[in-house]
């Protein structure tokens, strides 16, 4: 059975290798100092998608990302690894979105794609670490969702069986299709870029990128549809202007603090329930936990 697989992905600043200049003085991220990368858990999701594609000949894997026009870089990266193509949802009006506005916008784009069998994405992005967008998209589309997926074990007869990685162990669940699956970092690593695919797709470009290409390359891209990365606007996906970008984002950032972790003091507790309970209460009281 051939599947239409959608992979949700995000281009993120590489927060794993943060240097001294990662934050600006005003507490915002210094994007220029951090390379933009393919969100790591989205790569885990892509690998699951590519395995489904291999197991179901004739399937297609389409990347969907929201961001600046340059987010087409991760679509190309996905194509080098096995995806068929992708869409960048990009529009000034989408800027400043919190998870609610983001999931609404992406859900609108997924509706526009239509005819999807399964939607995969990483558990969370390393810049926000919310893990909300995948589940919210599922809600907005009225689809079942499977989170913390570690492996798609089986997909047949309209159902997908997924192994979930939970804090205390693993759980195997079965969901009807279509559904949204968010994939955990503990899932199989994504396959590398493939040499032949890199040579085949290296000229793939979005309309924005194409504008600055030499005529010779433009001609190639025009001739070969598989090299055309789509760019969709908010209007194209019929997004309600009130629900996208800043207007659609109830989250308001009050302040950003640059937190420097320092181990200041340590306290030794005995193996005593009362002492531990007191510590927990203290931590709740000073908002360290809870």
């Amino acid at each position, binding site marked *: 059975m051939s599947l239409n697989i959608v992979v949700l992905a995000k281009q993120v600043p590489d927060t794993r290798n943060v240097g001294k200049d990662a934050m600006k003085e005003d507490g915002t991220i210094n994007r220029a100092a951090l390379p933009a990368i393919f969100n790591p858990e989205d790569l885990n999701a892509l690998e699951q998608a590519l395995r489904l594609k291999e197991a179901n000949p004739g399937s297609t894997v389409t990347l969907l990302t929201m961001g600046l026009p340059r987010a087409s870089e991760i679509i190309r990266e996905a194509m080098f690894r096995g995806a068929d193509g992708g869409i960048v949802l990009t529009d000034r009006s989408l800027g400043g979105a919190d998870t609610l506005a983001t999931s609404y916008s992406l859900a609108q784009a997924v509706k526009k794609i239509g005819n999807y069998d399964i939607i995969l994405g990483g558990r969370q992005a390393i810049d926000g670490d919310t893990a909300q967008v995948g589940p919210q998209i599922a809600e907005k589309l009225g689809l079942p969702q499977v989170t913390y997926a570690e492996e798609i074990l089986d997909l047949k007869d309209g159902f997908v069986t997924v192994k979930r990685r939970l804090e205390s162990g693993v759980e195997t669940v079965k969901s009807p299709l279509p559904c949204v699956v968010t994939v955990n970092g503990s899932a199989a690593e994504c*396959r*590398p*870029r*493939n*040499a*032949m*695919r*890199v*040579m*085949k797709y*290296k000229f793939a470009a979005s309309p924005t990128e194409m504008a600055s290409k030499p005529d*010779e390359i433009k001609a*190639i891209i025009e001739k*070969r549809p598989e090299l055309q990365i789509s760019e969709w606007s908010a209007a194209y996906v019929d997004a309600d202007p009130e629900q996208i970008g800043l207007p659609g984002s109830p989250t308001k950032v009050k302040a950003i603090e640059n937190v420097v972790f320092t181990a200041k003091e340590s306290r030794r507790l005995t193996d005593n329930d009362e002492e531990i309970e007191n510590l927990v209460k203290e931590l709740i009281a000073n908002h360290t936990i809870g």
Partner: protein
Amino acid sequence: MANFYTDNPDLKHHLNHPLMQKIVELKERNYTDAEKYDYAPMNFDDAMDSYDKVLEIVGEICGGKIADNAESVDHEGPRVENGRVIYASATQENLDLCRKAGLMGMAMPRRLGGLNFPITPYIMAADIVSRADTGFENLWGLQDCAETIYEFADEDQKQRYIPRVCKGETMSMDLTEPDAGSDLQSVMLKATEQPDGTWRLNGVKRFITNGDSDIHLVLARSEDGTKDGRGLSMFIYDKRNGGVDVRRIENKMGIKGSPTCELVYKNAPAELCGQRRLGLIKYVMALMNGARLGIAAQSVGVSERAYREALAYAKDRKQFGKAIIEFPAVYEMLAILKAKLDASRALLYETSRFVDMYKIYEDIAKERSLTPDERKEMKKYSKMADACTPLVKGMGSEYCNQNAYDCIQIHGGSGFMKDYACERVYRDARITSIYEGTTQLQVVAAIRHVTTGTYLDLIRGYQDNEVKPELKWLHDNLVAMTATYEEAVATVSAVKEGDYNDFMARRLVEMAGCIIMSYLLLNDANRNESFISSAEVYNKYAQAEVAKHADFIKQFNPEQVSMYKPAE
């Protein structure tokens, strides 16, 4: 994560050599494949960009997983179960990664599923893989054997086997036997023709790298009653047919991840590759030339690793209140280490370009007849490749051993412990000057190019290159070294005494090698300032080496060879 291609700008420098323009143009037949294949380049820049991008994948995989896995591969190693080899788990992971990245069959033509890369970028990939895990370079690098099938097998065999290699099946070359090592003429493995024209193989092979591969090239005696090389033919054995078991694998000093097998052939079905009787004299010679270039690349990869480990340690380690790199005794070692690395790499890519040039012409000659000019050029490059291959294999492998030794020396006591990678590098280096022909055998192959003047012609060619004024002194030194070399050659050649000539051969070959490599580094420095210091240091080193050998030859009475002979 490290990328072993992008973190090493020297590689790009060599990839962008001016001769590449011609190599790529010929290899791509003026870019006509672009009509048929969506991954074929449309022009030179496109092709070079593709090599660059693919090498970036190689660098990423090598700098990440393969380098990380090297230690566990070294500890776990492969094993044999029921006649089959089971790779170390991380070796299997490395292979899967290379397959998925499509890095198998890189130099094979597109119509057979390959990437149609020239030898030069392919060899560069080998250089990078070896830096990450020297033993793994063997398993990956045995894709070279496909070249022999491509050159000598019939079309049907090419169609059946080469696409499998491109998809990631591994290969081996089954040549050595218990009594046939350096002397392959003594190969005994018996090939018997069946009434239906197929062949069966019976006998034993030993020291076979990756001996449980999917597709084997086997050297066997097809002509009953013969005893020399002319009775040997080349066969293809397909593991799917069964008939060859692994009796044991060797417990080796280094490259532990690469299984070295003893194979038992019991009526194993096989097919003839090429013509009967040409197995050793033509096909193995071609196979060996390719393999030797591969070992030269492996050696350069080892040198790169040794240099980086040594440099990092020397910067980090403090004694007497400062980093040890600040002491002349240490920085001299490091500078020479780097100079030998750069010298052998310069010769590696010079050789690979020569090989590219003549092999591409040979391939074109299968499609159309070459023009007289093309034929002349093919012959020229073929001869230079023939001269430089044993030189770079011989000296490159010796240098990587010296570099691995110095790398440990710079680490001091810590280097002797298992805690640092340098001890593995040292063990892995050791085989490079032994297999695919020992250094002593490379000298045997190289010496005729001393006596016939191929090396001198090459040197004269380099002498004509313009150099920047500030590098002129290096050029002048080289002119003087060349005169010394010519004098030494004349001295040795004047004596027609077999033992004496053989006795002096390595000295003469090394003198030629030092001068050639020093010229190549001078050219590199002329094109790219980052090579100036290596060009200078190597020039000083070469000067001393040439003088040392010349002096030995000058002070030597041919009769003195007898002093070295074992007592009767």
